[in-house]
């Protein structure tokens, strides 16, 4: 635009006027009113001068001017920056409206708060667990690599296999190995057990994370046979045990009874397997290829994919299978680190919960839609008057939508308060329940999600009522004298919404019901031992003080003896695997008579445990056949073994296993004689079929890391203290053992499905509540609308019972249609959760029928109150009322 200075000033003045009118809209409005009033006054006077009567003069002036309000509205729309103004006006209207009907507003806001709050809470869980990137450099390029045994299960890697993969691969920049250990840390306050990662020097460079203080490992520190005695601390351990003192770097500390030089501290946000300290791991090229104990993590070369790396490493595994008999049939699996860290099950649970919460949000929206529809019907007269006075249709729609967005905004605020509260609870859940769950925060992504959800929910809930209301026929509404009835179409719409709600509620009920059924079955699983009145005491002996096997054996014997003396304790035994801790030991087992066919690979793989005599009694494992280990089974005597029922049937189907002999590990050693058969146990995963297990005795193999299982015959006060004192009486330097009730450990083993089921059940309950409110609302409204008709019916002699059954029947019909649709939807959707269910079909008929019954009962209850109100309608009042 071509402007000189003067023109520019004029333009600016025009703009200033707009802004002034924005700041003081009421002033501008008064000016406009005055101006138009002046105009009319002048016109009236002109007409009077022309000889009209005062009344005629006024009438003619108005006619000449046209609709005053219409032009005012037009000027307003143009004034300032029109839409901002209009929004301000809409907001004022909304606030006034909310103040006028606080009950309606409270219900709508609470409903939306429930929906938005629940959805945002679950979103923040999904965000922390699934979406948020791992705290490593370029985490997408990291892969986890596991060996796969001939039966197709994932396995750890052996030292020489790891070295082969590391040196011969063509698809990885680097390949690191690690394993987790628990070490006792002494000399820094109370002795304590720390989770330590033994890692190759390449781990930190592979992850792309450097220390915050000092340095990490050098290549010369993980040489075979001589790992350097150096340690890198985690930020947390550094803070807790050393008070964040930076002088700790360069000092030596006592780990597993040996001196280690602290060389570095990792940064605060770095977490890897929850380890608190890292030591060098030195893989030994001449170790047994059958000794699988390492985990591997690699970084892909630029351009390489996980699939290419997989093919590359399988090639190496296949070559090894040809070269070494022990590696025959072994393969390898490469997956992205994210998939490995967050298992498919967890991922699926998170997404299932998210889907469920979206359904809940939809229900909340439907409810608010229904509320708004009812309100719009009640306000029809008001809206019609405003239309008659010149409010445009678009303007009305905008105002109604503003109302629902304001409700949504308030709902989101209330919801976010709920989210903050819920996240506090979630962060307080036991660690290890779901990976990364403790990192859940109310971050920008969550706020963004809540905002988006609020906007979509409020627009979604508001758009139908707004369209309906703005279509109101001015003439007929005003002519009816503002009688509040709703059109046929509107009625249908509300009923349709109720059907949708019932259907959604059915889906959530079925989902929640299936999870609860599955959970019930999981809690009823027989683990093979008795968990009540049993306590587990994990102990770990430093190999420096307990160098000889007899020292280890003596210690555990002595501790078991001391614990046995505590009043109320019936027995104490020990095992090298803490039940439900996730630890498992697996090795080849071969019957003596089949050793020739299976020279090195073994006949089958079975879990193995080392137990003390009396362990089975303490744990409550049933002895089915033969005898328990005894003090007579000594290292110098005949090698003995006990086997689980499943292992017995797998090794010698249909035969008596007692007295038979088997090889544990390689078939070149001495076979062991089976002396007894015990019942199956599930001590790793409750949901899996019991695995075959082989038991060896502490009298023949000493193991430094054992868990004492203590059985009492009653609740013993101060049991934990007494057990601790018994342990410290033997060795005062042992870390404080964490003593836990076995029942609690067992409950924790199914904490993840319990968590999912609890949340789904909560959602189902909320959905049920929303469905009740929806049904109740629609039926109550129908009664109010049909008061006149019901009055006529009663006047004509209809029995109150007939009126009740008519209304309740209507509710049941709507519910029935909703249930039908919901059940069909549930069949489709629950198929997606099949893998999360334990021994429960996704189409479990009891759950489906149960969900339908619950809704029918609820529909009856929701319908009864309005219906009985209708039956009490007094025909005379009803007919007079309108």
């Amino acid at each position, binding site marked *: 635009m071509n402007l000189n200075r003067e023109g520019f000033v*004029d333009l600016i003045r025009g703009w200033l006027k*707009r802004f002034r009118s924005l700041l003081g809209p009421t002033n501008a409005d008064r*000016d*406009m009113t005055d*101006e138009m009033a*002046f105009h009319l*006054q002048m016109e009236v006077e002109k007409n009077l001068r022309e000889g009209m009567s005062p009344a005629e003069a006024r009438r003619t002036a108005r006619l000449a001017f046209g609709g005053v309000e219409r032009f005012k509205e037009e*000027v307003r729309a143009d004034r300032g920056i029109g839409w901002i103004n209009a929004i301000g006006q809409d907001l004022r209207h909304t606030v006034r409206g909310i103040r006028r009907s606080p009950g309606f507003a409270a219900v709508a806001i609470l409903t939306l708060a429930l929906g938005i709050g629940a959805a945002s809470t679950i979103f923040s869980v999904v965000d922390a667990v699934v979406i948020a990137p791992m705290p490593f450099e370029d985490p997408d390029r990291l892969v986890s690599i596991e060996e796969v045994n001939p039966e197709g299960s994932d396995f750890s890697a052996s030292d020489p296999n790891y070295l082969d993969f590391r040196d011969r691969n063509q698809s990885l920049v680097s390949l690191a190995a690690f394993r987790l250990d628990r070490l006792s840390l002494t000399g820094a306050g109370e002795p304590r057990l720390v989770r330590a990662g033994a890692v190759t020097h390449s781990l930190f460079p592979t992850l792309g994370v450097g220390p915050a203080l000092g340095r990490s490992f050098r290549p010369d520190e993980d040489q075979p046979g001589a790992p350097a005695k150096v340690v890198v601390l985690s930020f947390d351990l550094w803070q807790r045990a050393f008070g964040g003192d930076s002088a700790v770097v360069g000092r030596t500390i006592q780990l597993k009874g040996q001196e280690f030089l602290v060389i570095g501290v990792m940064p605060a946000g770095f977490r890897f397997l929850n380890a608190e300290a890292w030591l060098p791991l030195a893989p030994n090229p001449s170790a047994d290829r059958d000794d699988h104990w390492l985990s591997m993590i690699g970084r892909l070369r630029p351009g390489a994919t996980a699939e290419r790396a997989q093919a590359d490493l399988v090639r190496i595994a296949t070559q090894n299978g040809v070269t070494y008999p022990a590696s025959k049939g072994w393969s390898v699996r490469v997956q992205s680190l994210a998939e490995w860290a967050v298992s498919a099950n967890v991922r699926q649970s998170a997404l299932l919960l998210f889907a469920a919460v979206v359904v809940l949000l939809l229900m909340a929206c439907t409810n608010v839609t229904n509320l708004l529809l009812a309100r719009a019907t009640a306000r029809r007269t008001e809206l019609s008057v405003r239309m008659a006075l010149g409010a445009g249709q678009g303007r009305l729609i905008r105002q109604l939508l503003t109302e629902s967005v304001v409700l949504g905004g308030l709902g989101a605020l209330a919801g976010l308060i709920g989210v903050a509260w819920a996240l506090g609870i979630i962060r307080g859940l036991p660690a290890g329940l779901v990976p990364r769950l403790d990192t859940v925060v109310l971050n920008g992504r969550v706020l963004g999600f809540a905002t988006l959800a609020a906007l979509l929910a409020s627009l979604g809930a508001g758009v139908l009522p707004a369209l309906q209301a703005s279509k109101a026929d001015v003439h007929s509404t005003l002519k009816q004298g503002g009688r509040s009835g709703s059109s046929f179409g509107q009625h249908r719409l509300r009923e349709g919404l109720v059907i949708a709600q019932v259907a959604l509620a059915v889906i959530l009920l079925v989902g929640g019901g299936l999870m609860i059924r599955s959970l019930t079955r999981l809690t009823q699983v027989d683990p093979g031992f008795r968990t009540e009145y049993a306590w587990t005491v994990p102990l770990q002996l430093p190999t420096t003080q307990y160098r000889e096997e007899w020292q280890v054996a003596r210690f555990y014997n002595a501790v078991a003896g001391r614990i046995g003396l505590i009043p109320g304790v019936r027995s104490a035994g020990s095992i090298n695997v803490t039940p439900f801790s996730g630890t498992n030991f697996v090795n080849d087992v071969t019957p003596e008579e089949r050793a020739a066919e299976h020279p090195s690979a073994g006949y089958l793989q079975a879990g193995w445990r080392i137990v003390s005599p009396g362990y089975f009694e303490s744990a409550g494992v049933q002895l089915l056949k033969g005898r328990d280990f005894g003090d007579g089974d000594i290292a110098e005597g005949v090698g003995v073994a006990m086997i689980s029922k499943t292992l017995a049937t797998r090794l010698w189907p249909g035969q008596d296993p007692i007295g038979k002999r088997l090889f544990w590990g390689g078939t070149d050693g001495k076979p062991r004689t089976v002396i007894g058969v015990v019942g199956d146990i599930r001590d790793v995963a409750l949901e899996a079929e019991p695995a075959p297990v082989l038991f060896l005795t502490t009298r023949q193999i000493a193991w430094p890391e054992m868990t004492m299982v203590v059985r009492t015959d009653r609740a013993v006060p101060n049991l934990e203290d007494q057990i601790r004192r018994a342990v410290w009486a033997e060795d005062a330097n042992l870390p404080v053992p964490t003593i836990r009730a076995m029942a609690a450990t067992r409950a924790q083993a199914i904490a993840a499905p319990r968590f999912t089921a609890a949340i789904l059940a909560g959602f189902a309950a909320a959905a049920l509540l929303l469905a009740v409110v929806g049904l109740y609302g629609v039926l109550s409204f129908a009664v109010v609308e049909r008061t006149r008709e019901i009055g006529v019916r009663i006047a004509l002699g209809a029995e109150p019972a007939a009126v009740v059954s008519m209304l309740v029947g209507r509710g049941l019909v709507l519910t029935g249609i909703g249930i039908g649709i919901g059940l069909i939807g549930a069949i489709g959707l629950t198929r997606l959760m099949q893998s999360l269910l334990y021994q429960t079909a996704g189409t479990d008929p009891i759950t489906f029928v149960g969900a339908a019954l619950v809704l029918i009962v609820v529909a009856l209850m929701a319908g009864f109150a309005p219906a009985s109100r209708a039956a009490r309608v007094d025909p005379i009042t009803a007919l007079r009322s309108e």
Partner: protein
Amino acid sequence: MASAPEHGWAIAQRIEEMSKEALQIGQGSLYPALQRLEQKGWLDSNWQTTDQNRRAKYYRLTATGRRALSTETDSWRRYVSTVELILGTP
């Protein structure tokens, strides 16, 4: 208004007179139009007292408005003559 400041009613009267009442639009529609012109910076307004001692809002053409008036008049005349040319008015 091109010559001296005027208030809305007077402007409406002038339009009616000049158009010989051929324009039968509601007088009220003048006000949105005036406001739009003001926002463009073509008009300026202030409250003054009339001869009969009443408060009224007076509109005055600004310099920009004057220039715009001549441009618009020109282009309108060009438009009209073009239409006449096409319609072949004698």
